[in-house]
């Protein structure tokens, strides 16, 4: 079963680019990606550009409305995701806990819907 691990964090928390801690932090992501690939769990993963680049789109009464900013104004932003193939929730949680951002942010784990063909 596929589990989507959504990575949320306050951009002001955790290691910041340009600081000494940032290098090891990003290296942690490299190690994690290698681990999930080696274990055969990786389906896909991406990092997203900052929430200041977000645009929200909706259609009401046939009219498209475009507004600046993310869907929800929260301190913690969606920064990226890993889509993993895991046996069950315990396995997905075990991997999610190894995502470096879990140390200061939060990983939301969601099973991916399977459509009956």
């Amino acid at each position: 079963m596929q589990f989507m691990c959504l990575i949320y964090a306050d951009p002001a928390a955790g290691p910041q680019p340009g600081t000494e801690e940032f290098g090891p932090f990003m290296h942690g992501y490299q190690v994690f990606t290698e681990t999930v690939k080696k274990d055969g769990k990786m389906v896909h993963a991406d990092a997203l550009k900052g929430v200041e680049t977000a645009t929200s789109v909706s259609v009401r009464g046939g009219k498209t409305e475009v507004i600046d900013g993310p869907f929800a104004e929260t301190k913690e932003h969606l920064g990226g995701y890993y889509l993993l193939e895991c046996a069950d929730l315990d396995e997905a949680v075990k991997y999610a806990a190894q995502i470096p951002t879990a140390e200061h942010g939060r990983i939301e784990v969601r099973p991916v819907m399977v459509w009956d063909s």
Partner: protein
Amino acid sequence: MLPPRSLDRAIERCVREEWGRILASLVKRLGDFQLAEDCLQDAVLVAMNTWAVEGLPKSPAGWLISVARRKAIDRVRRAANFASKHGEIAYLMELERVTEDEVEGFGDERLEMIFTCCHPALEEKTRVALTLRTLGGLSTEEIAAAFLDNVDAMSARLTRAKKKIAAARIPYRVPESNELAERLGSVLTVIYLIFNKGIERGDLSGEAIRLGRIILDLMPEEPEVAGLLALMLVHDARRAARLDVTGAFVPLDAQNRSRWNWTKIEEGVALLKVALGRGRVGPFQLQAAIHAVHGQAATWGETDWAEIAALYEVLYREQPSPVVRINQAVAVSYAMSAACGLAMLEEVGVGGALDRYQPYWAARADFLGRLGKTQLAAESYEHAIELSENQQEREFLHRKASRLAAGLV
């Protein structure tokens, strides 16, 4: 043959007794909590009618499980007419091959079930409710009553939980050894929450003790399981003495110790000794030990307060919570002096951290009263009364405050 009323009760008791083991086995085979529960419910209805006429069968559990399995075949077949579910049909064929012998000796999957129901991916209240429903066999109505919730809300909560278990694939198994301690902690906490609910009202404490016995039976090597059961037994032993004839709360120092259940205390103490002998001490064993010191004192005056204070110190290292420190301060106030207790209390309450916490003000009021600081004590009693959540507690504090004001203490 038994008269009808007592036969009804015998059937009810038997169903409650066997519910958890049968349901656990059905969930294992069907891989679906909701389907398993629906089928068992069907089987119970059939049993009520059949047994009322024919009497209890030789093996009621075996009887219930084979009827529940037939019901499962019916239900899945009916569903299969609408959508072809290959996996379930293959399962059905396997199910139909199950012989009577296998039905008699069906395995015990209650551990798998309780670890699933107490999974941290479920909300704590849901864990408690689900455990009472699945392992305890309580009805949704009974569980709703215990939470003072309405039945529809409780029913929706249980349905949501069963859906999440299926959809998020919460596994049905006993956790591996590297995560066992933490996950077992969640199971034991759920049982202790049930127990404490029972101390407040109703007979849930008896149910929690029954669940504790089941888990201990299945995990005899785990000292914290024995520790929890010992804690519940020793605590429950004093229940009858906690309220007087008018229903008012009686504090430990005024309790009639001949009303304590000494059999329960002895059983708890014996369990605790074996558990401590395993050399892996934990919070439940420590709390049981504290209650055991109280339980073994023939009179209030003979309580070994120094021992209790020392046990709280060890517990605080395991569980550094202000609640533990407040209790320790109470023990210190008797082991040493009210002034020492007060000093300890003020240390935890520094910066107003416990200003909205009733036990803090109740302990403070008591210490100040014993130190002769009547005015300050009265103010603390007022805070404690205002923060009390139940009537018995409020009345008890009122009585203490008025006795102090009248110069009776």
